[in-house]
């Protein structure tokens, strides 16, 4: 089955499948199928037999050309029902060429006496079929037709000049109702010295001629020499049809015939045959489509209305573009009824049938950011209607440039403009001599100037020196400290109490105990300890028996002692809870490790069902999969009950105050909420770590999507836990490594990480055991760690200091920053006023008490009501306090 030319974006699926399609005039397959063994008569007489499943007549394809000859000027002609709020209207004539595949059947039968023969020509397509035919007589030389003898002509035949006869085909009475066959029977006698019957088929409705490979059909009745190559029922092809044909022609490439008398050895018996020739009937169907756009004055949304008189089911395959690029995008909802998403690339909406059945219509709401509406139509027979070979594109008219948002600032956009301008400039100059074009060119230039200006404006505005807008904190600022499981007191300073190597000695708990006093004096309020359970990997992140707290970091008693010691100096302790996955104790019958032991002796129902490696019987995972171990199915109630109990037990038994939750991408945040409510931690934080957005290897300025995913998780957890601010770490990387400090202000002049959107839930950090330490999966720019700490320790959010950094040459500097943070009562909800976010310097004032800058560039806080005194400084950073 052929494909229909469509827009390139559609290519991938219009080849997908060949639909078996029955036309309205279906025929029973059986009616034509005398036998399923057919011999190719064209195969040099060889009796190569093969099966070919019988097929129904079917629509091959429809070539549609729509032209827009009615344009916006027609708006004046709108009928009353379409009111004056229509801002765009266009009527597209839709011309479909309906191709239907059918077949012509040719059958030669011999009667009992071997003298009387009958030729039957049939066609299974509807139409006013006429057989246009003539004969060759035995003693004729050449291929000219002659009129057949009178007794051979069926009664309703008419003569055409002196060489041909036309006989209409009649509906066959012998076939069952489901299928229709038109046929004509010509009886003749072998004694009439007719050598061959020639014919073509004509459909008088469409004035189309059907022939065989550009020639007549020829049915030889006596032995012909091999010169004649258009013989049907012989190895030869047909003779040339001399007449004029329309563009419609039969496409009978293959001839299947069947020798009824397989044992036949006489000449006569060889002549009996049956053949089918596939043909394609094309009919032109004229329809039209009316597209108009209304603007809703209340919501400033647009409503695209599509109406067509195509009677069949019509599916609009559509998308929107947000700029001039005509790039397909999926709009945000709401969608019309009967809409579904197609392969994440487009939407498909079935149009509703109009009352009375004459055509159908649909309404498509679009938001105001839409630049254009893109679509093609799909009919039920897998026919696509497009606009002159490409998609229909309805641009949404914008009333004035003032409406345009100007803060488009992504790099891709810039480059595009620059390229456009480049083309434009050369294009215009070559047009320079043509004065008629100059007006248009000027207009185009002015448009481009505006684009560029908007671009420049957006950038200049985003790096304003002093942002008058003070970050307002949504969360209530209360005078009394309120403890919440996500924020603790709000003044917490976190310490990661281990690195990737901490398991090596086997007595980490004991070693860390010696440092407790020092950590307290540095000013930490919370410590995060490594995963305490028995684990397949020494670092503890492949837990097996959750109730076995003997790990490579030490035994349960040492842990308890350590926790007690921390509590004594006022530091709360977080346990590293690895509950996304759990290693199994036993194999199932297939040898897969998915049966658990220990106190929590779950079976494979506790394992998610969509990870093929572990053959879980649980439900589909509610998050991403961690591939090295069976992922726990948190949707199972027994699992959640067990985990909640376990967390509570850890709280009580060990004395943990809260949790660092490992790999929370792996399961729904809603379950976290349940665990937090059950275990009532003082503080908890989840590790939601995925990749930031990069374009061509360069980190995007706008990481809103990335932080939004983290925010979404926190929201799912109902705010019961904070999350590590991976976004901030990533942006600090780029800012510091590439001297692009402008990245540290988002489009609204706020911090660009999670800390800019939900500071109280952002647990800021610059390094951990995975990103740094001996693993170094995503290491902070070397030697510039203090800039990172100058940022996170002065900014809102809950800052985390990594073990490796505190026990390094940075200790005193970090210590000074921590004291400054505490002295000035900077907390997770403090306000940030960004003073500078330029290429080489970022500066901000926090709570109007602390001023800071990082980067090599210059910055001095301006003395206004308060005087600033330099408090801490180091390599490319300075922090001031108001005095």
């Amino acid at each position, binding site marked *: 089955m052929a494909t229909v030319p469509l827009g390139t974006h559609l290519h991938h699926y219009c080849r997908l499948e060949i639909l078996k399609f029955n036309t309205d005039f279906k025929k029973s397959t059986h009616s034509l199928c005398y036998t399923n063994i057919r011999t190719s008569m064209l195969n040099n007489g060889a009796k190569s037999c093969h099966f070919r499943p019988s097929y129904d007549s079917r629509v091959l394809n429809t070539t549609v050309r729509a032209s827009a000859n009615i344009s916006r000027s027609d708006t004046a002609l709108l009928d009353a029902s379409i009111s004056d709020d229509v801002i765009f209207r266009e009527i597209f004539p839709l011309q479909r060429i309906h191709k239907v595949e059918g077949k012509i059947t040719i059958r030669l039968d011999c009667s009992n006496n071997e003298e009387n023969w009958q030729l039957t020509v049939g066609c299974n397509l509807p139409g006013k079929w006429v057989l246009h035919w003539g004969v060759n007589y035995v003693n004729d030389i050449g291929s000219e037709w002659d009129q057949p003898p009178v007794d051979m002509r069926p009664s309703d035949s008419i003569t055409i000049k002196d060489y041909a006869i036309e006989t209409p085909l009649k509906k066959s009475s012998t076939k069952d109702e489901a299928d229709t066959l038109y046929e004509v029977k010509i009886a003749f006698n072998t004694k009439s010295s007719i050598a061959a019957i020639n014919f073509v088929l004509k459909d008088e409705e469409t004035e189309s001629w059907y022939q065989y490979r550009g020639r007549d059909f020829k049915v030889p009745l006596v032995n012909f020499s091999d010169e004649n190559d258009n013989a049907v029922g012989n190895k030869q092809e047909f003779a040339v049809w001399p007449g004029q044909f329309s563009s419609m022609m039969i496409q009978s490439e293959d001839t299947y015939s069947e020798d009824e008398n397989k044992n036949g050895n006489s000449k006569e018996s060889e002549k009996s045959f049956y053949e089918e020739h596939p043909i394609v009937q094309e009919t032109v169907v004229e329809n039209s489509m009316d597209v108009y756009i209304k603007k809703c004055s209340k919501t400033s949304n647009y409503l695209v209305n599509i109406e067509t008189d195509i009677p069949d089911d019509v599916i609009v395959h559509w998308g929107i573009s947000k700029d001039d690029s005509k790039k397909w995008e999926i709009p945000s909802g709401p969608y019309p009824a009967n809409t579904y998403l197609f392969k994440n690339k487009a939407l498909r909406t079935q149009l509703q049938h109009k009352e009375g059945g004459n055509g159908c219509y649909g309404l498509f709401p679009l938001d105001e950011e839409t630049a254009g509406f893109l679509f093609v139509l799909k009919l039920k027979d897998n026919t696509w209607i497009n606009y002159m070979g490409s998609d229909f594109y309805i641009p949404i008219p914008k009333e004035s440039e003032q409406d345009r948002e100007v803060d488009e600032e992504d790099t891709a956009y810039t480059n595009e403009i620059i390229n456009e301008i480049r083309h434009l400039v050369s*294009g215009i100059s070559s047009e320079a001599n043509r004065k008629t074009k100059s007006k248009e060119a*000027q207009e185009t230039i002015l448009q481009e*100037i505006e684009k560029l200006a908007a671009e*420049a404006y957006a*950038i200049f505005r985003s*790096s304003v020196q002093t942002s008058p807008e003070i970050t307002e904190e949504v969360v209530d600022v209360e005078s009394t400290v309120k403890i919440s499981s996500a924020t603790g007191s709000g003044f917490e300073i976190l310490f990661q109490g281990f690195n990737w190597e901490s398991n090596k000695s086997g007595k980490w708990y004991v070693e860390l105990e010696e440092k407790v006093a020092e950590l307290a004096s540095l000013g930490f309020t919370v410590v995060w300890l490594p995963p305490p359970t028995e684990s397949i990997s020494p670092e503890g992140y492949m837990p097996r028996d959750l109730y076995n707290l003997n790990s490579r970091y030490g035994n349960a008693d040492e842990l308890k002692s350590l926790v007690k010691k921390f509590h004594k100096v006022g530091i709360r302790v977080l346990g590293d809870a690895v509950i996304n996955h759990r290693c199994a104790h036993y194999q199932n019958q297939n040898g897969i490790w998915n049966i658990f032991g220990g106190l929590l002796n779950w079976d494979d129902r506790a394992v998610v069902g969509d990870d093929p490696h572990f053959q879980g019987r649980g439900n589909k995972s509610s998050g991403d999969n961690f591939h090295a171990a069976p992922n726990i199915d948190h949707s199972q109630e027994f699992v959640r009950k067990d985990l909640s109990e376990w967390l509570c037990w850890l709280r009580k038994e060990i004395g943990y105050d809260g949790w660092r939750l490992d790999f929370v991408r792996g399961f729904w945040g809603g379950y976290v909420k349940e665990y937090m409510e059950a275990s009532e931690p003082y503080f908890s934080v989840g590790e939601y770590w995925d990749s930031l957005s990069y374009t061509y290897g360069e980190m995007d300025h706008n990481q809103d999507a990335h932080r939004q995913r983290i925010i979404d998780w926190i929201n799912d957890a109902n705010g019961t836990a904070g999350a590590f601010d991976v976004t901030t770490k990533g942006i600090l990387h780029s800012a510091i490594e590439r001297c692009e400090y402008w990245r540290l202000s988002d489009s609204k002049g706020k911090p660009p990480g999670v800390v800019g959107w939900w500071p109280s839930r952002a647990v800021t950090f610059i390094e951990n055991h995975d990103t740094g330490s001996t693993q170094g999966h995503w290491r902070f720019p070397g030697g510039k760690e203090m800039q990172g700490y100058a940022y996170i320790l002065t900014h809102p959010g809950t800052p985390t200091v990594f073990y490796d950094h505190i026990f390094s040459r940075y200790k005193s500097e970090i210590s000074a920053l921590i004291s400054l943070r505490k002295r000035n009562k900077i907390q997770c909800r403090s306000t940030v006023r960004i003073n500078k976010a330029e290429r*080489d310097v970022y500066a901000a004032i926090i709570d109007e008490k602390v001023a800071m800058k990082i980067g090599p560039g210059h910055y001095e806080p301006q003395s206004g009501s308060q005087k600033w005194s330099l408090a801490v400084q180091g390599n490319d950073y300075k922090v001031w306090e108001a005095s």
Partner: protein
Amino acid sequence: MFLTTQRGFCQSGSNNNKPMMIICATENKLHMGFSQMLKSSNFPVKVSSRYQSAASTKASRDPTISDHKEGVKLYVGLPLNSVSECHAINHSRAIAAGLRALKLLGVEGVELPIWWGVSEREAMGKYEWSGYLALVDMIQKSGLKLHVSLCFHACKEESIHLPKWVSEIGESKPDIFFADRSGTRYKDCLSFGVDNLPVFDGKTAIQVYQGFIESFKTFFSPFMGSTITGVTIGLGPDGELRYPSCHDRIKNSVDHGAGEFQCYDENMMSSLKENAENVGNPLGDFTAYGDFFLSWYSTQLVSHADRMLSLASSSFNDTTVKVTGKLPLVPSWYRSRSHPAEVTAGFYNTIYRNGYEEIAKIFCKNSCGMILPGVDMLDEQQPNEVFSSPELLLADIRDACRNHGVEVCGQNLNVASTIKNFEQIKQNLVGENGIELFLYQRMGSDFFSPENFPLFTAFVRSLNQVEVDLDDLGVNDGESVLLVPGKIRKLQAV
């Protein structure tokens, strides 16, 4: 053009200066007879040989420039902090987009402030031009011309300081800075008093400036005369020829106070003393002392201007670059008799005395153009209580320039303007008394804002009668490129 040859001026100066001064002192402010008289008189107007040759060189090199002789050459200032103290280009993406927009708009070029405190930041004689070179390269590639402002001052708003080593010297020798009567120092530029004092490791301020200029010239020689068409030499606070009399004034607004005299640093005081001794004891007569003091005070300014302009003029003598210096526009109290704001700024310009004549004379002597800011200012927008008249003052200074054949270049004061201000600029620029060069200050978010930019666009288009000159967009005689009209957009026309 209103340029006389130097000789021509000297002749006319010697013949006419004195009687003019008399007219001026007696009648000028009474009914503006002076300027009217000059307009009607056939004052000899000649084109200086130097400018003539410059113009003809340009004309032969680039015919499109000569096409502009009817119109104004418009330059748009780049952000003050375009190059950071660590020699990176700030907001380079925005500048790139801005340059393209300006080029398409048909603007002649851009103006770039080059800071002493950036390029000679670390140590005296240690110059670092990399950031500026990169930016100038960008400008050249954009096809725009460049007017450079050499800034020997600091800019508080943008945190651009004087060179570190200057500040360090200032700590031990505070008298390199201006001081007012109460001893408050103005540390954003050097006092005129050290122009010829070897306080910088044995070098005078002028020598230090000279070193900077020479280095600039050397490093930017590939661009000189081609991309770089003009240089403005910094003459004082904010680059303007004045005393920092109103140094706490808010940027881009006219201070309405009278300001303070700024001559209380040691060097200035000793100069005053010396001067007084030469003149005899003027202290007996209070009025006489006032005149003596004000003469001395304004002469210091004029002398400083002479030193700086002659330095610049001689430095760029072998190039086609146009050298300019900038005057302030101090319109407050202009309608009063004593013009106190102008006087404290160093312009002894009262109803009895034209203070701008001698300034113009110096500009003429050094063949320098004069940049006048505030051509956008309207009397009607001034507060009544300060007797301000920017329009009259501007006319006054321009008359002085015309008398001495000094070319006037315009500059605006406020970035985001109203239609009226643009109209005012246009009025000042066009006409028989036209201005050839206009520096529009300055690129940034206000400049590109939806409020200002459409006005600016319309302004530019109205200046260039030929709307957008297509030939300016670069010639490419290759195959025609299909123009794809963008979205339906309307330009906000005035």
